[in-house]
């Protein structure tokens, strides 16, 4: 029994983590709920392996299950419930504002991406200019070898860059 429950907790943790890493807010919220369920199951398991009730009947203390973890879990469930409700409201608000269920980009990330893109463009321009100059020099040296000087000056004149 303990093994089955432990495996269930592990599965909940795994699915929760997977969903948490998605971009849709609804999936993130479900992921968080699954994580909390996994943790709660773990706490229930920490009471011991037997399935006896905690307070019903009478007998020696050893015959009963430890009630404290169940009190913990009840508290934790209530808290998770409240916070999940808040999170859903927040996700709805986000949807109203952006008409999109996706986690929005981080502003800093976007700035960095834009700067990198700008640098790429600059690099490309610089490389193009360099290639241009090299071609022209090649043409110049060819011209100096084969053409008269007047034509060479005209060739230099028509390059605006």
């Amino acid at each position, binding site marked *: 029994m303990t093994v089955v429950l432990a495996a269930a907790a592990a599965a909940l943790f795994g699915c929760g983590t997977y969903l948490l890493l998605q971009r849709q807010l609804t999936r993130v919220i479900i992921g*968080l709920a699954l994580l*909390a369920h996994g*943790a709660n199951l*773990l706490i229930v398991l920490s009471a011991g392996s037997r399935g006896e009730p905690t307070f019903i009947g009478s007998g020696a203390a050893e015959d009963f299950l430890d009630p404290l973890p169940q009190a*913990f879990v009840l508290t934790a469930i209530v*808290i998770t419930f409240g*916070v999940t409700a808040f999170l859903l409201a927040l996700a709805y608000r986000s949807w109203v*504002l952006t008409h999109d269920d996706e986690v929005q980009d981080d502003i800093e990330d976007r700035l960095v991406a834009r700067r990198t893109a700008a640098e790429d463009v600059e690099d490309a321009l610089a490389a193009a200019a360099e290639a241009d100059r090299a071609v022209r020099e090649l043409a110049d040296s060819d011209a100096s070898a084969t053409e008269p000087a007047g034509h060479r000056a005209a060739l230099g004149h028509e390059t605006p860059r």
Partner: protein
Amino acid sequence: MTALLTLPVALPLAAAALSVVVGRWRTAQRAVGLMTLTTLLGTSVALLVAVDRDGPEATQVGGWPAPFGITLVADRLAAAMLVVSMVMLLAVLVYAIGQGGEERRHVGFHPVYLALTAGVAAAFLTGDLFNLFVSFEVMLTSSYVLLTLGARADQVRSGMTYVVISLVASALFLTALGLTYAAAGTVNIADLAVRLGDVPVGVRQALVLLLLVVFGIKAAIFPLFFWLPDSYPTAPTAITAVFAGLLTKVGIYAIVRSQTALLPPGDRPEALLLAIAAATMLVGVLGAIAQNDVKRILSFHIVSQIGYMVMGLGLFTVAGVAGAVYYILHHIIVKTTLFLTGGLVERWAGTGHLDRLGGLVGTAPVIAVLFLLPALSLAGIPPLSGFVAKLALVEAGLDQGWWLIVTVSLVVSLLTLFSMTKIWTGAFWGEPEPAADTQPPLPVGMLAPTAALVALSLAVALFAGPVYGFAERAAVDLLDASVYQRTVLGP
């Protein structure tokens, strides 16, 4: 004594309920909020005096004996944290009332603010890991609401990050609780310290490290700090000031408590904590240097300053932990003041962006003074409180021969000064911006609490001797876990 211990938790909760009932009348709400926080300030000062005179005090709520019932316990650190937070919460409430804004627009501000107070107080006073979880949740849920009060697009975006990361931390905390209970059969901190002795070393260390991760997310230590500079700046100024001054420090408090109370001296992860401290300091201050907005710069500095506190703890000597305690007390006041001043700048000039600010020294000299003192204190310029705190940490580090961390801390200090100079030259020096002359005067309700906090931080520097002496007594209590155990479990 029972009343002194339970009042900081029970009173703000009752007041929050009352504040909802009288929500129709803003004056009544304000009176309830101010009176509650003033009473709590008085209570916590009384508690601090009692605890410093007689040693730690504990009470069992509901009368169940120690490992089973709800334990409230105040030692010197908890009482001091309580006093400083109450001062700061009261000052910020006055500021928020003076500022208008969210406080005026939303009927929920006062009740949620009081619930936050209850959560913070409970986190300091609880003697039980599960109740620490509950207090964290009370505090965090209130902070979610306060962070997103306006429900603007940027608030929802950053609020989402903040809520999700906090919930992941909460799920981890629950997991840690389950594992701890399975391993040791108790979650009472004092009882746990005894019973963890029978648990295999590997399991014990894994549990305490899991707790370090959980509290590390709340305290924003490296590498778990990424959510903080994103989410804090979008909240209204008064709220950001509370978050900046208090919430991460509750996380640090939990780290200090768990690392000192749960582990015997030989097992404490000194090198790990010092490495985390160095990385936190460096990453935070480098992030701050790259920023161009007052609130964002200050938010990155929170991260950097957290590193100093972890450094003091990581030394695990009386001098080191005393330095950390002094640092926390100094930091709560100074950081809050800086954010409040940032709010004054925004109110005066209409923006917090350094490119669009300038010449405030000429147009608003009062703001300039109120910014300069805490900023220099944050950087550690003598004779301000930050200098005393950093000196204590550096001396403690040198005593133990940790040259590397001491070097890092001094370099980071210098970079902090550089970053503060950036705000100073960007906002206060230079040519005044054209629109700055036509501003209405700043409300006294905003200026007075800021000035009071600046005065308090000067007092912490002026009475550095007695305050540091107190911090040393607190550190002795923390490092010798048996005092705490005797208080909670009885002799």
